[in-house]
């Protein structure tokens, strides 16, 4: 419990008055290339009003869309060694971290918050693709463990929104070890009899898929999300075959039995609320 009293500093944030965008700003859909009003796109949760293409969302948007009335409290996550390998390629890893922090205003590629989803207490962790491709190093692993512990403490389900290119290469084998460590996070939640729900968003690939991501009690994906273990290019080079239409997309995974459902973003919060309600029989009986 000590880590919690130490790290939790609730900050209530809401969607309202978040930023000022001129109402008449036009946005083009990257899928169908049609134009729409920025405000219409925002109202439709960044889903194209013409073709239904789901555009990538920011963490703030995710949290606001998921929690009731867009209200939640973020928790501060445990600190981890910043650069375990003293890694550098064309740039030092510490420099890359610094610029990712400046760009996103976040410490690393995971944000954890708690609040209510459909009237149910819930802990939500969101991976941040804008932060070094959402790659998983020690900070993300430790953050997921913190989210799991918070869920257990609050007797609340854990919902994780995934978005990641895979392992944080700059942390080498330390990054690889986050696979078993995040599997342990899922075990903590499940052993407490709490639902672990994964929402896979575009894109979720590599070591992140081959650990906690695929161990949800319920596996949900957003339409069109790219989800896979191996990269498409690597597969093409290995098998020297053309990849099938829609390969590694959410609908393909649903068809192959890997997901429970593909849910439109506009219906996601309601779906999560319904699932939590249905899975929390024990909680209701105890009350």
């Amino acid at each position, binding site marked *: 419990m000590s880590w919690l009293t130490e790290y939790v500093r609730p900050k209530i944030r809401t969607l309202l008055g978040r930023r000022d965008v001129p109402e008449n700003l036009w946005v083009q859909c990257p899928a169908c290339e049609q134009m729409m009003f920025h405000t219409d796109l925002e109202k439709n949760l960044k889903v194209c009003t013409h073709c239904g293409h789901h555009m990538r969302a920011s963490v703030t948007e995710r949290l606001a869309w998921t929690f009731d009335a867009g209200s939640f409290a973020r928790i501060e996550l445990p600190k981890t060694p910043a650069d375990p390998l003293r890694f550098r390629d064309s740039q030092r890893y510490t420099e890359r971290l610094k610029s990712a922090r400046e760009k996103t205003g976040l410490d690393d590629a995971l944000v954890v918050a708690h609040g209510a989803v459909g009237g149910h207490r819930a802990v939500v962790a969101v991976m941040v693709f804008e932060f070094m491709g959402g790659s998983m190093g020690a900070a993300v692993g*430790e953050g997921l*463990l913190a989210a799991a512990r918070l869920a257990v403490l609050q007797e609340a389900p854990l919902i994780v929104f995934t978005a990641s290119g895979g392992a944080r290469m700059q942390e080498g*084998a330390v990054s690889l070890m986050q696979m078993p*460590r995040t599997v342990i996070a899922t075990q903590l939640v499940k052993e407490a009899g709490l639902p672990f729900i994964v929402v896979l968003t575009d894109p979720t690939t590599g070591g992140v898929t*081959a650990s906690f991501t*695929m161990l949800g009690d319920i596996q949900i994906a957003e339409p069109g999300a790219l989800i*896979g273990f191996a990269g498409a290019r690597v597969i093409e080079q290995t098998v020297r075959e053309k990849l099938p239409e829609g*390969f590694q997309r959410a609908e393909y995974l649903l068809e*192959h039995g890997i997901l429970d459902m593909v849910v439109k973003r506009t219906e996601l919060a309601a779906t999560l609320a319904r699932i939590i309600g249905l899975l929390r029989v024990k909680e209701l009986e105890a009350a």
Partner: protein
Amino acid sequence: MRHYLDFEKPVADLEGKIEELRHLSEADGINIADEVARLTEKADRQLRATYAKLTPWQKTQVARHPDRPKARDCIATLIAEYTPLAGDRAFAEDSAVLGGIGRFRGRAVMVLGTEKGSDTETRIAHNFGMARPEGYRKARRLIELAGRFGLPVLTFVDTSGAFPGIEAEARGQAEAIARSIEACLSAPVPVVAAIIGEGGSGGAIALAAGDAVLMMEHAVYSVISPEGCASILWRDAAQAPVAAEALRITADDLKRLKLIDAIVPEPLGGAQRDPAAALAGLADAIGAALAPLLGHDGPGLIARRREKFLAMGRDSLI
């Protein structure tokens, strides 16, 4: 015929000369024996010097050496009464993952290994050690079986990684690996993993989330291959030697990062020069790792193993 690696050329030249001399008839020279002895000593010195300061990229070559003992050799040498078990009970048998029951130093154990093969025929038969979902599902099945019957699990890991294929993805490669990791972590029996050659990413950790993780002296263990990392971060696969250095993939590095438990010394010039000696050393290391684990009950083992992985990375610093 011995396979020499590029950086072993000076040794190869000397040993080539020795071979030539041995083929000369006694009549041709008087001091052949003396010359052979002199060259042998020189080759030995050269080998010792080379192997004393292998770069991470050179270690990668040694770890992938065709003559290195493979999982199959480990099982053949270390495991008595080996009884292979096949299949994931859902789709197929995957020959990239060997598995079965047998005895290690008299004790009944479950054995798992990723097998690369050592010539063209066996490499193809074992899919170059790259497992498909069925391989990981078979591993999970056998780990669970071991748990029910109280058999310690020994794994021999040697893989460039999980197979990147269309069908592998369609049948849930990621889920299969995740479940295999979960099975390792949940086993109520000791799990001792040995990285014997190449510990390639998720395909390796799937069989290596154990109580004790050993690495052979010249094995490598990495989140991505040096070539893969180089082509992504340096945009040039030829930078693999640089990436190998940066990724900290050697047994020494992993030990220093507190991610593995022990390093198994190899004979001079690597396990490929003297597989019998290498495997004897491996057997001793496995025996030493297993012994203290045998005193714990199932829940105790699971809790210790969990704590071990939870502690990883908290103070990992090269």
